[in-house]
C-alpha cells in the first residue's frame, strides 16, 4: 500500500507547522519567570484553572499543528493506493473507439462507448495513426483498464500485425464489425466513351462508391446498357486503361450486369475481377498490368458484378483481440482521492480550536460576573 500525491508540491506547506510552534514559543517567552516561595495559595485559588489552561495550551498547539499539517496534506491530494482502490481502477475502462474510414452509425458508436469510464472517438487517415493517437490519449487518463475498440467494416488492409504489435501489451484490443451505413448519393466524375473517345461527364451515384465510372454508351443507357469500371477517383488513368482494354477485348456493352470491378483493399493494393478470381496487385504502380488483367478477366465467360469489400477474417480478428491489462503505473491520478477526509478533519479541528480559544475567555467572563454579583 502506498500513497500517491496528486499535487506533491503542496507538501512544502508542511513547513508551515513551524509557524504555530514559533507563535507558541514566542508567546510563552513573553511571560517572565518569577521565583516564588510557595504556589500553595495559588493552587487553592487559581491552580485548577491554570492547570487546565496549561493543558489547553499544549492541546491548542497540537490542534493548530494538526490543522496546518492536514491542510498541507489535503492540498497535496493524497490518494491511498490500497487494494480496494487498485481493484476499482481495474473495474473502470477507458475506451478509445477507433473508426475505420467507413461510415459508422451513431448507435454503433454509442454501443462501443457503453459502460466506459472515459471514452474518445478517433478517426485518422491510417489505422497506425489512429492507434498512436489512442495511446497518447490513454497516457493522459486516470488509472483504469485501457481498451481500444476498432469499429467499422474492417476491410482487409485496414489493420496489420505491425499496427497491433505497436500497441502496449496492457492495452486491450477489441473489434466491433459494423455494417456500413446506407450512403446518400453524390456526384462523381464519369468517363464516357462517345464516338470512340472518352469524355468526362458527371453523374450522381451512391456516395460510398468512391469511384470513377467509365461508360461507353450514351448517358441514357448507363443504367441498362453499361460497362462500368469502378476505380479510385484518383486513378483515372487506370480506369481509362481498363476501359480501353475492355473495348479492345470486344466486350459487348449491352449486357446489363457486365461490370468490371477494381476494388480497393487499402492504400496501394487492390483487386481486379469479375465475379470471382480476383487478382491482387500493386495497382497504382502497374496500370498497364491492371489493364491487362482487366482484359483477361473480361474475356472470361463469367458474369462480372459489383464486388463487396474484402473483410479481415474472423480468425485474424480473434488473434488480434486481447483483454486489457494493468493500468499504467504512470497514469495521472486526478481523482479527488482522500483529500476530502483531510478537509473534513481540518474543519473539525478548526471547530475544536475555536472552542479551546473561547473557553478561557468564557470562564474569565463567568468569574468576573460572579465577582460582580458577589
Amino acid at each position, binding site marked *: 500500500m502506498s500513497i500517491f500525491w496528486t499535487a506533491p508540491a503542496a507538501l512544502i506547506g508542511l513547513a508551515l507547522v513551524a509557524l504555530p510552534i514559533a507563535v507558541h514559543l514566542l508567546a510563552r517567552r513573553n*511571560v*517572565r*519567570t*518569577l*521565583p*516564588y*516561595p*510557595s*504556589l*500553595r*495559595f*495559588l*493552587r*487553592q*485559588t*487559581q*491552580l485548577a484553572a*491554570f*492547570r487546565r*489552561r*496549561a493543558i489547553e495550551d499544549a492541546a491548542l498547539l497540537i490542534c493548530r499543528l494538526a490543522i496546518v499539517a492536514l491542510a498541507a496534506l489535503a492540498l497535496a491530494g493524497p490518494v491511498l493506493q490500497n487494494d480496494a482502490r487498485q481493484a476499482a481502477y481495474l473495474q473502470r475502462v477507458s475506451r478509445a473507439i477507433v473508426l475505420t474510414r467507413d461510415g459508422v452509425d451513431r448507435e454503433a458508436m454509442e454501443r462501443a462507448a457503453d459502460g466506459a469510464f472515459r471514452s474518445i472517438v478517433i478517426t485518422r487517415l491510417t489505422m497506425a495513426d489512429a492507434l498512436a493517437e489512442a495511446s497518447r490519449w490513454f497516457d493522459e487518463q486516470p488509472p483504469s483498464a485501457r481498451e481500444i475498440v476498432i469499429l467499422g467494416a474492417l476491410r482487409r488492409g485496414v489493420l496489420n500485425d505491425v499496427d497491433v504489435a505497436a500497441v502496449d501489451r496492457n492495452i486491450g484490443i477489441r473489434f466491433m464489425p459494423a455494417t456500413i451505413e446506407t450512403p446518400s448519393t453524390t456526384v462523381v466524375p464519369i468517363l464516357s466513351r462517345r464516338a470512340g473517345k472518352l469524355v468526362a461527364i458527371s453523374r450522381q451515384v451512391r456516395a460510398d462508391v468512391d469511384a470513377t465510372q467509365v461508360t461507353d454508351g450514351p448517358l441514357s443507357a448507363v443504367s441498362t446498357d453499361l460497362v462500368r469500371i469502378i476505380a479510385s477517383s484518383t486513378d483515372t488513368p487506370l480506369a481509362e486503361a481498363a476501359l480501353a482494354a475492355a473495348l479492345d477485348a470486344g466486350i459487348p456493352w449491352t449486357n446489363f450486369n457486365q461490370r468490371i470491378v477494381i476494388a480497393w483493399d487499402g492504400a496501394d493494393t487492390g483487386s481486379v475481377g469479375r465475379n470471382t478470381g480476383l487478382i491482387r496487385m500493386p495497382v497504382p504502380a502497374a496500370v498497364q498490368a491492371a489493364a491487362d488483367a482487366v482484359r483477361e478477366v473480361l474475356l472470361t465467360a463469367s458474369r462480372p458484378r459489383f464486388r463487396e469489400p474484402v473483410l479481415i477474417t474472423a480468425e485474424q480478428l480473434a488473434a488480434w483481440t486481447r483483454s486489457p491489462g494493468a493500468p499504467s503505473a504512470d497514469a495521472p491520478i486526478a481523482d479527488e482521492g482522500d483529500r476530502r477526509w483531510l478537509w473534513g478533519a481540518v474543519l473539525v479541528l478548526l471547530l475544536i480550536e475555536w472552542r479551546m480559544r473561547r473557553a478561557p475567555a468564557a470562564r*474569565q467572563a463567568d*468569574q468576573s460576573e460572579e*465577582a460582580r454579583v458577589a
Partner: protein
Amino acid sequence: MSRSHVVTSTELQSLRDLELMTKTTVEGLRQGLHRSPFHGYSAEFSQYRHYRPGDDLKYVDWKAFARTDRIYTRQFRETTNVSALFVVDISKSMDFGSKFVLARTVAAVLGTLVLDQGDAAGVLAVDERAHLVPSRSGHHHLRLLLSELASLAPGGSASIAEALRRAATILKRRGLVIVLSDLYEDDEAIGQIRRLARMGHDVIVIHTLSRGEMTLDVGGAAEFVDLESGRRMTVQPSAARESYIAAFNHWLHHVEQQLRRDGIDYLRLIAGEPLEPALRRFLVGRRGLS
C-alpha cells in the same frame, strides 16, 4: 565576620534596654533572670510555708511569728540562666523579599540580648548539613554566633521541620527555642514545634514574611516557580490577587491560632517594615507574662 554584617548598631541599641524573658520555667546551670523549676533561696520571694525542723533559721520570718505566733519559713523562687537556641529556616522559600535577612537580623538582635543578659545562645540551621553553634554564654560567644548567622544563606533542601527535629534531640535541658521561619511546611513544622513545647521548652515562633507574598504584589503576569518544588504555574496576579490574599490570610490566622492554642508565643514580622516597634512590643509583652 563583624556583627554589622548581620545587624546594625541602631537596631541593637534601640532594644538594648529590653530583656528576653522566658515565659515558662527553664533549667539553667547558674543563677539568672529566669524562673527555675526548683525552689530555693534567692532574691525573689515566692511564698511562706510552715516551718519544718531542719529549715534554715535564717529564712524564718520573725515578724510574721510576732504577729501570728506561728513560725513561717520564707521561700524564694530560684532563678536561673536560660539556654536559647535560634532555629533558623534556610530553606529555599526564605529566599524571597528579604525574608531571610529579616530572620537573620532578628536572630542576631535577640541573640545579642540573650547574651547581654548573661544567658546562653546558640544557632541551628539545617540544609544539606546542620549548621550548629551550641548555646554558650558570654560576649566572646557573640562573635561566633553572629559569624555563623552571617554565613547562612537560604537555598537548602531541608525543611524547618528537620531543623526542629534535630533541635529536639540536641536540647537536653528545658530552654528557650526561637523558631524563625516562613512556616510554609506548616503541618510538619507545627508538629515539631508542639513536640518541643511538650518537652518543656519555651518556644517562640517568629513568622517572617514579605509584604509581596502576602499581597501578591509582584507585578504583571508571570510564570511562578515554586522555590521549594520547582513547580511552575502561569498566574495573572491581578486576577488571582483577591482569592490569594483571602487564602493567605486564612492560613496565617490558622497557623497563629494553632500555635497560640498550645501556648506557643507567635510573632509575625514583615520584611521591610520597622523592626524595633514590633520587637519591643513583643519583648515587653513577654516580660509582663513572665
